[in-house]
């Protein structure tokens, strides 16, 4: 079949699914809803696989123009797709993991009265996510970018009777919009610099620019502001933990596996621009490590199973950016993929636990679940092992590759990265132990209801667990498949800065030492968690318990939300009130003042109309004299 049509079908099938389930909400039989939605994504996945199989190795990008979207003067923004190694990889992840999560949602959500709506929104999300990764220019990426933000909003606030869920949804949308403004201004600067937004043309022109070009720096930084919003980096990260208000499959699909990695995709897509702007990469690196450590430290003390995973996601996204900041673009993408596997797995596992626990999310009330939920337990344990960076599972390889590149770049960042990796291992095993080991701490009723989830939920868990276990094979140390596959994407970067892509100068022995150090730290953290939560059977204190000062600060997430509330939200609100009461009064007062003046002067003028003929004649003569005088002095 024609490649253009095939490409168009990839996003159109989920869109079709959305339309069927959306328009037919409450009319399509519940039994069909899940099937339609899942099949739509599965079909896209199969098309992507066929494209992937037939894509020539080291082939250049294939552009599929659909139609002329926006055209003004010399500016042409076509609606077009680009198929290359990078988009294929993202397409595989989005549709592949997407299919699994759709399948899982059938089990998880089919009792909900809004089931049809839910599946429709998931399909819509896939549609926009596909536009995001398939677009051949920045504006198409922006469509997807904002579209996934909309779906995120709709799905976080899915249970819209709850006011705090709605607030979380709104917060996510608005915070993303702050980032989007940066993205938009970045696009404008690209337009004004290159006269086009098409990736191929922009990057081609960019390769002829000198390193450290100021305009490119500005573009790179503005685009990164967008990435901060979507990928939840400091300071725009606080929406992501709140986004856990959405149903758990949403957290797995949108807020872990796909949407939040869009920022990494954007930077990798624009790698030429970032390679040209080393200062921008410095900024990325600093933001990344701050985010990674801040979020990991908050994760240490969280007691909500989804919140722990949410902070862990924020932290892992920081790692991906950390890799990018060391121009280790492949390593960043590698971690995007492995993270999609194990984080989706962990969230779905958490969903399975929440399902079994009758919607309980507090790990202090769980414990000992491994007997009742064996499949969930084993898969969750594999996910935990993988994310903690312990060999031989996927996270070990991808995180290690990032840290190795960072080591070359900056020893300080590397040390901090290893520290963060230890924190990750600790809070993840804390989560695992508190949930699945020890004694059950919930109510008797909950205990009675405990059950393993149905097959639609466990099959995705098993598949993702396998992928999390063996995913590391995608890019084994010393030039794996992924590095080779993605090579053409970084051709431009290599051209502008060959040094950044030179063969690693690190000895193999050093590399093994580095690996051992990070794995060792993770293992130590595991042991620490084991001692605390299994040997000593510690259970985190209740919310009201007394905490030491630093503990209190971390438990309250460093009071960042409160800070934003006090420093930004409230001032804007009171500004609104002031403008409305005082500002409008003052402006209106000015207008009324002018009106009053006119009225007063007309009252004076009226006196001239006295009715006395003598006065009129006098005024007339005076005027004529004046006119002549004026005429004499000023010639007009």
């Amino acid at each position: 079949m024609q490649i253009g049509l095939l490409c168009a079908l990839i996003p159109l099938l989920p869109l079709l699914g959305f339309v069927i389930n959306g328009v037919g909400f409450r009319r399509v039989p519940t039994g069909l809803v899940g099937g339609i939605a899942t099949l739509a994504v599965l079909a896209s996945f199969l098309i992507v696989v066929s494209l992937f199989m037939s894509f020539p190795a080291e082939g250049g990008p294939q552009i599929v123009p659909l139609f002329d979207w926006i055209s003004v003067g010399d500016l042409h923004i076509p609606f077009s797709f680009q198929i290359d190694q990078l988009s294929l990889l993202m397409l595989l992840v989005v549709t592949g993991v997407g299919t699994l999560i759709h399948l899982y949602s059938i089990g998880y959500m089919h009792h909900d009265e809004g089931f049809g709506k839910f599946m429709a929104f998931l399909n819509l999300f896939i549609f926009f996510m596909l536009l995001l990764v398939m677009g051949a220019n920045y504006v198409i990426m922006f469509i997807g970018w904002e579209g996934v933000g909309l779906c995120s909003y709709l799905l976080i606030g899915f249970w819209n009777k709850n006011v705090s869920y709605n607030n979380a949804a709104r917060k996510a949308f608005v915070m993303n919009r702050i980032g989007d403004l940066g993205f938009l201004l970045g696009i404008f600067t690209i337009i004004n610099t290159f006269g086009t937004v098409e990736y191929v043309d922009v990057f081609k022109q960019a390769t002829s620019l000198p390193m450290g070009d100021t305009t490119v720096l500005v573009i790179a930084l503005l685009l990164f502001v967008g990435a901060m919003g979507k990928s939840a980096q400091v300071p725009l990260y606080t929406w992501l933990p709140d986004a856990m208000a959405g149903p758990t499959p949403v957290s797995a699909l949108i807020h872990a596996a796909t949407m939040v990695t869009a920022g990494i995709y954007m930077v990798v897509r624009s790698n030429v621009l970032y390679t040209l702007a080393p200062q921008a990469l410095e900024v990325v690196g600093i933001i990344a490590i701050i985010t990674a450590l801040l979020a990991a430290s908050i994760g240490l003390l969280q007691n909500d199973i989804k919140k722990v995973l949410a902070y862990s996601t924020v932290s892992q996204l920081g790692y991906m950016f950390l890799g990018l900041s060391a121009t280790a673009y492949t390593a960043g993408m590698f971690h995007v993929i492995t993270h999609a596997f194990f984080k989706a797995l962990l969230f779905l596992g958490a969903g399975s636990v929440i399902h079994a626990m009758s919607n309980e999310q507090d790990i202090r009330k769980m414990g000992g679940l491994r007997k009742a939920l064996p499949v969930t337990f084993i898969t969750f344990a594999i996910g935990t092992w993988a994310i903690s960076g312990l060999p031989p599972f996927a996270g070990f390889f991808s995180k290690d590759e990032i840290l190795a590149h960072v080591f070359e770049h900056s020893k300080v960042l590397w040390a901090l990265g290893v520290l963060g990796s230890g924190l990750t291992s600790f809070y993840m095993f804390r989560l695992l132990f508190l949930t699945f080991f020890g004694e059950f701490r919930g109510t008797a009723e909950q205990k009675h209801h405990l059950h393993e989830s149905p097959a639609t939920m466990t099959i995705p868990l098993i598949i993702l667990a396998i992928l999390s276990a063996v995913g590391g094979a995608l890019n084994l140390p010393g030039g794996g498949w992924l590095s080779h596959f993605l090579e053409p994407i970084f051709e431009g970067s290599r051209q502008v800065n060959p040094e950044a892509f030179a063969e690693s100068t690190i000895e193999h022995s050093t590399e093994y030492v580095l690996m051992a150090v990070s794995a060792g730290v993770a293992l130590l953290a595991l042991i620490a968690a084991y001692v605390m939560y299994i040997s000593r059977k510690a259970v985190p204190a209740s919310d009201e318990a007394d905490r030491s000062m630093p503990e209190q600060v971390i438990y309250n997430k460093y009071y960042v939300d409160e800070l934003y509330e006090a420093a930004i939200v409230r001032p804007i609100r009171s500004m609104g009130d002031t403008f409305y009461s005082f500002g409008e009064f003052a402006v209106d007062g000015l207008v009324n003042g002018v009106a009053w003046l006119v009225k007063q002067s007309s009252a004076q003028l009226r006196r001239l109309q006295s009715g006395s003929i003598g006065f009129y004649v006098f005024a007339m003569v005076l005027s004529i004299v004046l006119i002549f005088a004026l005429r004499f002095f000023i010639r007009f």
Partner: protein
Amino acid sequence: MLTLALILFPALTACLLLLTNSGTTRQLAFGAALIETALAIYAFSTFTPNATSQFGFDYPWIPSLGIRLSAGIDGISLLLTLLTGILVPLIVLSTFNRAYERPGTFYALMLFMQSALMGVFTARDGFLFYFFFEAALIPIYFLAAMWGGANRIPVTFKFFIYTIFGSLFMLLALVYLYYQTPATTGSAHSSAIVDFYKLKLSASAQGWVFWAFFIAFAIKMPVFPFHTWQPDTYVESPTPATMLLAGIMLKMGIYGLIRFILPVTPIGIETWGQTAIILSVIGIVYGSIIAIRQRDMKRLIAYSSFSHVGLMAAGVFSQTETGLQGALIQMLAHGVNVVGLFFVADVIYSRTDTRQLDQLGGITRTTPKLTVYFMIIMLGSVALPLTNGFIGEFLLLHGVYSYNHYLGLAAGFTIIFGAVYLLRMFQKAMFGPTTARTESFADLTLSESWVFVPLVVLVFWMGVYPQTFMKMTEPAVANLMKYIGTTAISMK
């Protein structure tokens, strides 16, 4: 000739409607408005996309003075005649669930208004433009003053005086321009707008003319700080009148900027454009911050409209092709969205007797249709890509950003604040727990749905395939850019 039909047909049917006063009046008005829509769509679909004025007519009016009855449609008029043609029947239809007293007069005034608007957007003679510009004020004044809310008399009076005051400056400018035109055969001067374009005015004269026009149009739109008549008028007017005001009438101001200020006073803009653009951007931010705190739905939409209009004005003053094209497409998009939003407020008010957000909530529970339409219109207003609002805002913001990066950034706050106040409005009205007033909220009736359907179709059409509209205006915009371009060069 088509233009003549577009202008005269509503006025003629309005005269007939004055004679009726029965229950069928609104059906007649709706039918007439639909015929007008057909004419407008016919004009749109047969328009040849080039820079010429088409479907025109030209008769002597005051031959000795060179003033003519001349009107026609060019690329810039086209979208506005289409907007007027499409919106009026929807506004008429939106009244079907309400009984307005003296329907004959009510609907006749709406159609008179449509005639005047068509006249404004197509006039090719300066004085004819002025005539329609003022004529449009009369029906809307009576609509607001006779069918408005409790506080309508002082509010509409202020609106009337304020806009008349502004138009006086425009009249002065027009008279001045008229006297500058060279003699033609048969008369001493000409009031054709194209002849105004040919004038080579001195820099100081351009400054005066710029301000005279600016004040008139700035009040109409309105631009900060000439806006204080607007929120009160929007709130107090009956909703169909508000829709006419916000959906169509305020575009007279932006249209005026494009039609007169840009080509006639390019040096005036060179000198004063920055002041104007700064005022516009202040309006964007100021209006949206106020909108965040509003409790009354109508007032909230009024401030949001004020903020959005600021962006259109700023785009025009950026003197860029994207800014101009953005303003044109956004006029159409804003008309669609703001009418939709006001209609939502009206639907909610008609069922709950309140527009106060804190008395609403949970409406979505019983209203799948309203929820979906409201959501789509709202997304159009927050400029989500693939909806109509995005195309306009993208181009406008690009124009302003190209003019000045910092102003672009400031104007860009509209996408953040817009999301804040519109999502807040949506959430407070539709989500959360129900209140006593919203408990038994009935979903849309058939006629109400049919108001939304065309609007929603336009939201997507303009967002997904805007070229349908933009390729019509492109030659006219390119032509306009020539006037700006020549002076920009001659200035240097």
